[in-house]
């Protein structure tokens, strides 16, 4: 818990630093500052709650909100933490060849526990500096366009795609909209649905809306035990329906966004168990479980022909949805 107030002090310092830099150099750093300020505010609320002995909102929520808390734990392993433990020779290929290189969505060929794959991953950053650089895992259109380019390479070289999903959502910014955020996500969904190679996706921590689905059109979709995957974050849902972001715990309950919920709804094939207390308590064990599950699905898919993979993926998503026919 004192770890948290250290982090808070750190972040506040960093924000002041950036604000000064912005003033001095006339640079517009708002894009970097905004999510950071949010983080600070969140931590400060939690810290206040702790000091005043008030019950933290995490406690007010049910089991689902607790899991959301675990999914966002500051020590939660990031995609690269898993990649470092599970792959060899990961060679990051940069850029969309159109506009830029997105820092939140990375990819390139690698060997996953002995299996050559094309890796796509969403990386949130591991400390303040990299969190800012990686926009807390929120991509601009360049990220999804890089992903599509790497899917082209995966198809050309017959490399199965492994997509590690971890994003609060696509970045909501002026430039993102100018460069077609919606278009990029839609095209990435379409491109992924057309892969002639196997695709295995795993939601590591947060699966935020279209920004997650953009690389989530797999033949198999797995999810870590304490990850969430939803059409909207609990906070945003709460502020729309209850007009109060503090109702996030209730929204989390209503949204049924946890791994067991998603398994029951048929959204995912498998829940990957985490060490007791969460993946952050034993990153090696968490990685081992993820690695084993992904490898197993890759092996199962490896015997299928391109047409079977295409048809299987299309049928999987075509069947999604619950309705009544009268």
């Amino acid at each position: 818990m004192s770890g948290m107030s250290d982090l808070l002090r750190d972040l506040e310092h960093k924000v002041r630093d950036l604000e000064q830099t912005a003033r001095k150099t006339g640079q517009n750093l708002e894009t970097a500052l905004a999510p950071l300020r949010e983080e600070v505010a969140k931590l400060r609320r939690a810290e206040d709650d702790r000091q005043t002995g008030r019950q933290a909102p995490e406690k007010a929520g049910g089991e689902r909100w607790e899991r959301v808390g675990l999914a966002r734990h500051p020590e939660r392993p990031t995609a690269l933490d898993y990649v470092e433990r599970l792959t060899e020779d990961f060679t990051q290929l940069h850029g969309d060849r159109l506009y830029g290189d997105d820092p939140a969505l990375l990819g390139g060929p690698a060997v996953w526990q002995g299996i050559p794959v094309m890796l796509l991953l969403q990386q949130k950053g591991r400390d303040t500096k990299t969190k800012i650089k990686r926009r807390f895992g929120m991509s601009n259109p360049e990220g999804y366009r890089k992903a599509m380019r790497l899917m082209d390479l995966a198809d050309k070289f017959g490399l199965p795609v492994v997509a590690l999903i971890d994003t609060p959502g696509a970045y909501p910014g002026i430039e993102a909209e100018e460069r077609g955020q919606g278009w990029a996500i839609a095209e990435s969904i379409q491109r992924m649905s057309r892969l002639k190679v196997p695709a295995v996706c795993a939601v590591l921590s947060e699966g935020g809306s279209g920004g997650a689905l953009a690389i989530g059109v797999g033949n198999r979709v797995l999810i870590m035990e304490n990850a969430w995957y939803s059409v909207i974050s609990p906070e945003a849902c709460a502020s729309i329906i209850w007009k109060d972001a503090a109702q996030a715990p209730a929204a989390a309950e209503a949204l049924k966004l946890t791994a067991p919920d998603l398994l029951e709804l048929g959204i995912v094939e498998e829940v990957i168990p985490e060490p007791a207390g969460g993946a952050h308590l034993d990153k090696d064990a968490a990685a081992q479980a993820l690695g084993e599950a992904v490898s197993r699905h890759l092996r199962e898919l490896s015997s299928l022909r391109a047409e079977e993979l295409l048809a299987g993926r299309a049928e999987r998503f075509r069947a999604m949805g619950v309705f009544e026919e009268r």
Partner: protein
Amino acid sequence: MALEHFFRRSRPKQQAGNDLPDLWTKCPACKETIYNKDLDANSWVCPKCGHHLRLDAQQRMDVLLDPGSFEQLSGRVFPSDPLDFVDTETYPERLERAQAKTGRPEAILTGRGQIEGVPVMVAAMDFAFSGGSMGSVVGEEIARAAEAAAAADLPLVLVAASGGARMQESALSLMQMAKTTVALEGLHAKGLPYISVLSDPTTGGVTASFATIADVIIAEPGALIGFAGPRVIQQTIRQSLPEGFQRSEFLLEHGMLDDVVDRREQRAYLARLLRLLKPSARQQGGEQ
């Protein structure tokens, strides 16, 4: 994603709380009071200022298709409540209210019809139904319309109007983005045109799926179109948004649209385009 500021906004036409008699509508842009008959004759474009008023799905079909040519396809698929979603009220209560208000089971109407004699499959979202949000039924009806078009060798024209995904169906709603996308593959495989018409507003998961992977994407003038809602962006960047941000004309300039087409010219535009893209339709088409 971007629903929050739509839910509270009243629809321009014949809305509860509107103190004008049902025969008149106040243009939300220029505030002029206009005789509904005149609006109707002008495709619900304000004759004073050119503002394109929002249409419900049936009005959209009337405006888009040759009179009397529409045959409904959708309507047998009804929403359910797979998540037992409860907030300030239950999801079934919300649905019943929307159904009562629109006389429609969901936020979508699909069918076949003709545009200046060119036969098409057509789908129109209904913003009046829960902000046109996309849940399982909207996704299913769009998927079926796409598949029916491919089966019947018809082009698909889809009019989007949506605040995004249906929160009350959570991940199931999210999956409709992929479901609609894969259902459109049949049109692509058969070389059949898919044309998307973006109307005010089109945001969130609809902008990030079927609405923007069409062969040709046009928009109505002045429509709000984007992925993230303006309010969300403003909260993130803490700056005021540029003039015209996320409006059709802005998106055209940024390369995202094939054109911005006045509603009164859409039938001529679409008929011409469909004949051009599917030369065999040239024979089927009428004289115009």
